[in-house]
């Protein structure tokens, strides 16, 4: 295994055992599942709707992630700085890229695990009706990618500051901005006066636009590319911020 992948894996495993070695992870997962359950069943009236699709479940992810994911990401770098271990990892013979990737992937996998734990819902739907498995699969992939995008924003804001609270707030605001730019109220406000290309441009930057596109059941390369390039860009910025702190 090439050195880079090996180092990234080592960091990732360390972070993951860290997550599951403390009660915070379990609290987070329980709260996440409870909230998503509440929104799906009570607010969206999943049963009453009578549809064997999981739209009433997946439509909540952008909003739930808005608060929950910054809470996972806020400790990524802020904690290292606070405890002082940033001096330790930055003086180990591994590159910053490996550390950033390792930490990010661990957090992403953690969020992914939390999402997978919603599978009983899928099982219920399968029992009660005949869902389109392709759409369900796409929806999971889409929300996983979007989760990664939120995380990358949170990771970046965490590198800016020592304080977890500031990181959280900055991440929430940034993610809100990213989500809202594709939201109908915003796009409708723009349509009145802005040229079409501008409206499309602003909408195309939004998490929401691409998420909804995937929800329709098609894994369009453009949407995947959007999320991955967004994540890449955020993590790159993350690196730039950390390096600039060195000087």
């Amino acid at each position, binding site marked *: 295994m090439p050195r880079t992948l090996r180092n990234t894996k080592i960091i990732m495993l360390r972070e993951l*055992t860290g997550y599951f070695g403390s009660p915070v992870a379990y609290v987070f997962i329980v709260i996440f599942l409870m909230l998503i359950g509440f929104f799906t069943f009570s607010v969206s009236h999943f049963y009453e709707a009578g549809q064997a699709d999981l739209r009433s479940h997946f439509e909540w992810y952008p909003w739930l992630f808005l608060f929950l994911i910054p809470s996972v990401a806020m400790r990524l770098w802020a904690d290292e700085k606070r*405890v002082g271990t940033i001096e330790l990892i930055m003086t*180990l013979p591994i590159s910053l890229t490996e550390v950033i990737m390792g930490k990010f992937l661990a957090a992403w996998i953690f969020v992914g695990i939390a999402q997978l734990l919603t599978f009983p819902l899928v099982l219920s739907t399968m029992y009660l009706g005949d869902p389109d498995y392709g759409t369900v699969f796409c929806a999971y992939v889409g929300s996983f990618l979007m989760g990664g995008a939120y995380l990358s924003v949170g990771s970046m804001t965490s590198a800016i500051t020592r304080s977890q609270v500031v990181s959280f707030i900055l991440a929430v605001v940034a993610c809100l901005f990213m989500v809202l730019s594709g939201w109908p109220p915003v796009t409708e406000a723009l349509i009145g006066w802005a040229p079409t290309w501008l409206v499309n441009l602003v909408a195309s930057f939004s998490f929401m636009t691409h998420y909804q596109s995937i929800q329709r059941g098609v894994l369009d390369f453009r949407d995947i590319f959007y999320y991955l390039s967004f994540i890449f860009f955020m993590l790159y910025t993350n690196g730039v911020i950390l390096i600039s702190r*060195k*000087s």
Partner: protein
Amino acid sequence: MIEVKNLTKFFGPKKAVNDISFEVKKGEVLGFLGPNGAGKSTTMRMITGFITPSSGTAVIGGVDITQSPIEALQKIGYLPENAPVYPEMTARSFLEFCAEVRGFAGAEKNKRIDETIEKCFLKDVIYQPVNTLSKGFKQRVCFAQSILHDPEYLIMDEPTDGLDPNQKHEVRSMIREMGINKAIILSTHILEEVDAVCTRAMIIANGHVVANDKPEQLRARSGLHGAVRLILQNAEVEKAKNCLNVLPGVKELEVIDDKKNLNLRIYPETLGVPLTDKVLKCATENSLQIESIYTEQGRLDEVFRMITEVGEARSRLDRIVKQ
């Protein structure tokens, strides 16, 4: 060999490290001394690449830290200030993590970890989470990660900080032993540590190197060096003072105490010309009852104070000259 070349660091307008250069060869243990804020930690952080220098560089075993940091860091073991460790990990899992990052795996990894645990006396606490350990143990865990891979170069920022006297003794013996075939830089506030461990001491004040010498030579800079301390019993003060004062080679006589016994310090005129035997001869000739006689070597803390105050004055002069 560690070569530090013209390291300079600005934090905004403040020059924290001012053109520091020095070398440390294998077999040397260099002690960094200096007042707080002098630039010791900053210099060490530049050597390990944690901070980027404003100018200058450090070359470790032929590898430039600013150009090939990862290669250089493989040769270094670093103990940062405050001994940072991941709090929720157990001591053992932390050392496993560090060993894996350093490239060890399988049986070799376990062997190294076990050896290091033995050396650092961590056996009793390896399965405890680090945040439950006392400061001394936490320090030793971080110390352990710095020696895990048996590096040729060790850089330690206050390695005995917060340890009790026994632990200090153990750590110092370890450093002395390792210093035989490694190049070690350590920073400390404890002057007796310099005597105990270092082959050379460097005093840094206000970002400058103000002294770079063996501990014995540094002590010799003290005004007290070579002075004879004489404690006489039942002496007639005036008689004793007179006969001692006229001795050739005596510069000055200082009475430290004349209440109980006569406690004198006799300063020599020239350093290197021993005075003790002459004083002894004079005292016996005049039937003075000697309770104790010894030759002062000078104290490091006094030399330190003198030198750092000079460094402070020089900085002030620099600032005035600039204006």
